[in-house]
């Protein structure tokens, strides 16, 4: 049987988690009845940059679980040409070849203009060194920083700061994926000049927070008497382990991002935590999980998708 998943007009992160993932769960449940899976982008005009690593990871998972590649359908229309152009410039098309098939040639019929200069997706093997990760991101961000961020930095009288923060953020996240997740990872970045927002996303198919947290900190957890049984509690525990550091680790990343009005979404295996500027006080006090409104609005459970997926939107 052929299963077609229709993608909405705007493929956003919430659309991915709220609509695509549940459909994938159904496909996996009835895996013996589905022999062809198509993602239909016929009605899609825009793709949020933060969804790209998730989508690439999803492709790899489908390929390994079902044994065949899912198919991406992008029509040869003007809108389809614009979408292909965007996906090409985000380096999605090149990376997707490994885990997806395309119904028609994705490299023809590009429409629209070049997008912002800092955009792209990279793939890291698990065996990569920290220096190699650093070199990739330095080379990726540097030309953009020279062209755009410098002008912005001059206005803010804070030379080089944004550039360094973005690079270090990406390095930390990619290193986490290989060290703790023990997996390959996809990372994407798109600095949307029109929105003055940098979109950063990293996805891996690793063990997730709970397993890695228990493996690495079992003794400390036992001593502290904390009850860490689910992914949300594990995410919070891992964040607060590095609370003492102002400049390194997830705590610093989240704190800096939400302090500057940004958003961080962390998904691990089946739970997603959303950090927004609204929760800054409880976050700093370490009382987030006791906050009922945080539990209600900022924690989403039952979003089954193996691995860790971090999405960040930082205003610049």
């Amino acid at each position, binding site marked *: 049987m052929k299963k077609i998943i229709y993608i909405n007009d705007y493929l956003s992160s919430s659309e991915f988690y709220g609509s695509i993932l549940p459909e994938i769960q159904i496909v996996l449940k009835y895996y013996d009845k589905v022999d062809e899976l198509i993602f239909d982008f016929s009605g899609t005009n825009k793709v949020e940059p933060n969804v790209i690593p998730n989508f690439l990871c999803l492709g790899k998972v489908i390929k390994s679980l079902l044994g065949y590649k899912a198919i991406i359908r992008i029509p040869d229309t003007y809108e389809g040409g614009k979408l292909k152009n965007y996906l090409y410039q985000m380096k999605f098309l090149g990376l997707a070849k490994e885990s997806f098939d395309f119904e028609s040639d994705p490299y023809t019929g590009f429409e629209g203009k070049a997008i912002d200069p800092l955009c792209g997706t990279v793939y890291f093997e698990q065996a990569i*060194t*920290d*220096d*190699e990760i*650093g*070199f990739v991101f*330095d*080379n990726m*961000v*540097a*030309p953009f*920083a*020279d062209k755009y961020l*410098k002008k912005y930095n001059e206005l803010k009288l804070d*030379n*080089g*700061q944004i*550039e*360094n*923060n973005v*690079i*270090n953020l990406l*390095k*930390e996240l990619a*290193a986490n994926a290989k060290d703790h997740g023990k997996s390959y990872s996809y990372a994407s970045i798109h600095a949307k000049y029109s929105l003055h927002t940098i979109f950063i996303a990293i996805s891996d198919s690793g063990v997730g927070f709970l397993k890695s947290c228990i493996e690495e900190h079992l003794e400390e957890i036992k001593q502290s008497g904390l009850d860490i049984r689910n992914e949300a509690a594990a995410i919070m525990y891992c964040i607060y382990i590095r609370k003492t*550091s*102002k*400049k*390194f680790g997830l705590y610093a990343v989240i704190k800096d991002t939400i302090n500057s009005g940004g958003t961080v979404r962390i998904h691990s295996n089946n739970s997603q935590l959303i950090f927004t500027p609204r929760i800054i006080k409880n976050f700093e006090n370490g009382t987030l999980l006791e906050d009922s409104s945080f539990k209600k609005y900022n924690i989403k459970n039952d979003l089954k998708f193996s691995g860790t997926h971090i999405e960040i939107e930082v205003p610049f």
Partner: protein
Amino acid sequence: MQVYEEQDFVMIPLAMNAFFYNIPVGTDKIRYSNSVSIGEKFLAILVQYFDKVDEGKYIILDLQDTDYAFHLFQKLKTITRPILFLNIISETLHDKIKEDLPTIQFSAEQRYAVLNISFDDTIKEICEKYSSSVISHNIYVKIVRNLIDDIPQNPVEPQKLDSSGLYSNMYVNVKRLFKYPENYYSIAFGLAKKIVDSKIEYDGLISSSKNGAILANLLGMLLNKKVIHIIGLGPKYSMNTGNLQKEIKKRKNYIYVFDFRCTGTEMKALLALISANEAYVTGATGIAVYKSDQIDIVNNNLMYLVDLKTENIPYKIAGEKEDIITLMSKQQ
């Protein structure tokens, strides 16, 4: 390792060195960045280098335009000898160092720091005296001095300068630079920094000599700009392939890349050529110059690393072979 050494201390500009050591083997894409990340590999090389420095000398690290991730400086905790940190300009870098090296002492203005030693007057004097540009400038002078063929003995054997037809008492052998990649990349890093810091608007780089072309190619890659090589302008080492008319685009701005500029004959010819093609030369950059005070169109934007005159390198030029011999014998 590119260092500037004096009797009491060794100064290491981390940005220049990390830039070279960060480049992975076999890569074909390197970009210049205003801020260079210190990698694990480079830090290991640096710590190894500390062992080679005499015990009595201060090790001074120039941190301008650098940054790092992953608690890397914690590795310096094991070092027991005194280390000075200069030019800590970025606030983030300051906080990171403070966190990774709890015993470090910062100066009152937080721009300098010392590890395993206290501030005294000598240290304060060094910190005040050596800005980042002074340290790197001293290194560039050292590199250029090594490019000059041995200072001639008496009697002087004059060198003919191919572009202007004049004679000089010594030869700046830029080809020697390409034998030492570390020097070559340090020079390219310095020139890229000059171009970026100058904020000149330009669309491409242009070169007229073979040495200049090699340098321009690397700069073009670092700065992500198109490079044009002009044919038949330099007399002996000129480029001899390509099509000039097609490459130079109307109303575009170019930066001229040279290796060593003596009297600027080649540069003037190039400016005329570019103007004839309705394009502009908005700046010129190269390793070294003689007569930097010479007035020409790009004078305000002449970006060079070393001026032979101000560095007391006894470089002389004259119109005739005999004149240069007379000039040098008078000096001796």
